[in-house]
């Protein structure tokens, strides 16, 4: 059994209001050492037959991410 991890994150230059709000509030709380925050989402898939791990890439491209604003990274473990 193999595991496939897909990380979906915003492309560079795309503003993430959630991350900005977190950073801003961290500063209010006094964590001045942190300059900015990036958020991404990780999906983990159990794939019994790793020969079919390509399906995960297809899922990532078609369903998990909108390539206009997001990128994805597939990692087999």
């Amino acid at each position: 059994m193999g595991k496939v991890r897909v990380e979906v994150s915003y492309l560079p230059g795309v503003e993430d209001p959630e991350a900005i709000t977190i950073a801003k509030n961290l500063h209010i709380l006094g964590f001045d050492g942190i300059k900015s925050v990036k958020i991404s989402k990780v999906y983990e898939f159990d794939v019994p037959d790793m020969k079919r791990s390509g399906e995960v890439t297809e899922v990532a491209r078609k369903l998990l991410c909108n390539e206009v604003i997001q990128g994805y990274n597939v990692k087999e473990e």
Partner: protein
Amino acid sequence: MSKKSDSHSETVKIRDLDNESLVSLSNRMRLALSEGEMSQLRSYFTNAARDPTDVEIQAMAQAWSEHCCYKSSRFYLKKFLSGLRNDSVILAMEDDAGVVEFDDSHAYVLKMESHNHPSAVEPYGGAATGVGGIIRDILCMGAQPVAVLDSLYFGDPSFAGDDAGSHSTRFLADGIVRGIRDYGNRLGIPTVAGSVYFHESYNRNPLVNAGCVGIIRKSDVVRSRVSKPGEIMVLVGGRTGRDGIHGVNFASRSLEAGDKESSKSVQLGNPIIEEPLIHAMLELVDQKLITGMKDLGGGGLSSAAGEMFYAAGLSGTIDLDRVLMKEEGMKPWEIWVSESQERMLVSMDPGSLERSEKIFRKWDLDYSVIGSVKEGDNLVLNYSGEKVLDLPLSFLTSGPTYVRNYHDGNVDRTSVIPEEPKDYNAFLEEFLRSPNVCSRFRIVREYDRTVRGSTIVSAETGYHGFTSHSDSAVIKPLPDSDRGLVLTSGCKVLMTEADPYAGSLISLAEAVKNILCSGGRPHSLVDSLNFGDPENPQIMGELVSSLRAIGDFSREMNTPVVAGNVSLYNRSGEVNIVPTPTFMMVGIIDDINKIVTPEFKENGSHLFMVGRIMPTLNGSEYLRHRRYKSPGAPFCDLKELKAISGLMGRLTADSLILSAHDVSTGGLLVALCEMAFGSETGAEIDLSEIQGMRTSVKMFSEGGNAIILEVREEDRERFLKECGDLKPIYLGKTYGNSISIHDNGLQVVNSPVSRLREIWSTGLENVL
């Protein structure tokens, strides 16, 4: 292009270019300008004996885009829609939104706009910023936004996207609804009404039309213009970034397969900034600290600043390096045309700055003074002391006007009547489940419809546990007045597809009926006109026909058209969308205690129909469901509609009707079902009094002025007397818990309301 080593702008050598090179320059710089427009620029700079900077050429492209200067539609807009106002109008077609009298001391502000192209490539962000933008359009008149409406048009629910990069209908619909939900709900402005329609022509080009209504004291209306030389320009709210660059240029061409290039044209919304922005702006208005205000939407700073100066016959200087930025290294032209969201530009007397700054700081908003107002015609932009743009505003705003060729399509005046369904009960279930007939609960329940506490009727209505849809939403905008705003928006897509002129009239008539059925009187109108490629004469013909219909309707019904928006190039590949003029109508109800809703109120009361049913199935959902292509739409009888309008006013004032619902999508049968769904009560109906048509036509015809009314036994005589010449048709009684329909002695439908309600309520869950 050439650049001096220490310069912030580049010189674009266009004087020496031939026409072919001009076109390739336009493509390379993503200007979306045509060969003719580029050569107009070339002659201007040849006369001026200099080449433009990149800032100047980008600013021109922005100002001359279809989105900003309406070059394809302006001529016809002027021809058909000028002067459509009455005494209640305070501002029409002048500033960012229309302003109309609400009561002696208050006005309401309204506008609807499309956000189609962005939503096609990034549905969540596109739809969210559509909502944010329309709310700022209302806010910039100085008004408190009180309600949002959305008319959405999606592709065939089964469309699964394609490998060229088009998203599936499910993905688009889901993203768009979430975008509207997250933006509207987080701002605390209720999303109360609208429409949803599915049609395969929207497969790759969904439409998002967002409308907003606000309320304001008449004396507080802020114009979208500066007032006098010496004032300062302050940019407040969100910072400026590279998001949304070239958005308007993008919106002014057709979508191409896999439009990944568009990523930078997509703006992402941040409602957490817009919420305090609304409070701060309203405080500025309240304390009379500003002289003019405009939101930054399509075209960004370029459009907003230019228009604020030009509308006042003045000019100004803007220092681009004083604009607060999200990221480093932005070029001056990028700052000028960026469409970053949540920004407002205000003009004020320098003496008001200190008090304004306190308000900005209180609401934790970024702001900067970016320029000043001066006499003269030339707009000047500086960046670090260097002049990067110096152009007459009269030239910037002199965008071309195209009198595009059009031809009126020949409308087929025949009629199609399919054979009657063998089993009406089975057919009714299938019909109620279909995506365009079933309830919109799956979508509207995502939205906060009651925040602000002024929603009297939202998109849902009915007794506890028995929910149906209302005809329009009712908002009580002022705490100490019982006067209400009645809101509706939509388009009868199959009718406009069959005949853009007649279909537009029917769409407008439906808006009127929706308001009448809620107890209101139609008061004013805005449009959001979505059409395909205007360079195709047939599509242009659709637009012209629709405009002609709006003009005719407005004059006949004395309903002013106070603002509007045109979205063209809604085309993907070879497929143009069907003509989709969305109309948002606002009505007024003098006393919200007289509101009427569609659900049956009593068992054993009488059901009448006023207004005629058309003896045709053309343009009906039924015909489409039976897979027939519809010939031309029926004509709408505006004289009859006017009479019904007067009658409904009298009936509502005398409280003579218990419930009312217009015959719309799905026809009489669906209308009766929807009235039953909101209550425990069914109906016993006999259609025999409707004469001269087959049963299926009686039950499914759309496009007439018919309204179903529920009347108490003791009010029957008074009701009939009030109706006079309109001679209502007797349909039957509310009774039991089934929908039973007879025609000419035969029972054609008999189905339990609870079963039909379950099918209708969950229809959309099967597709989205």
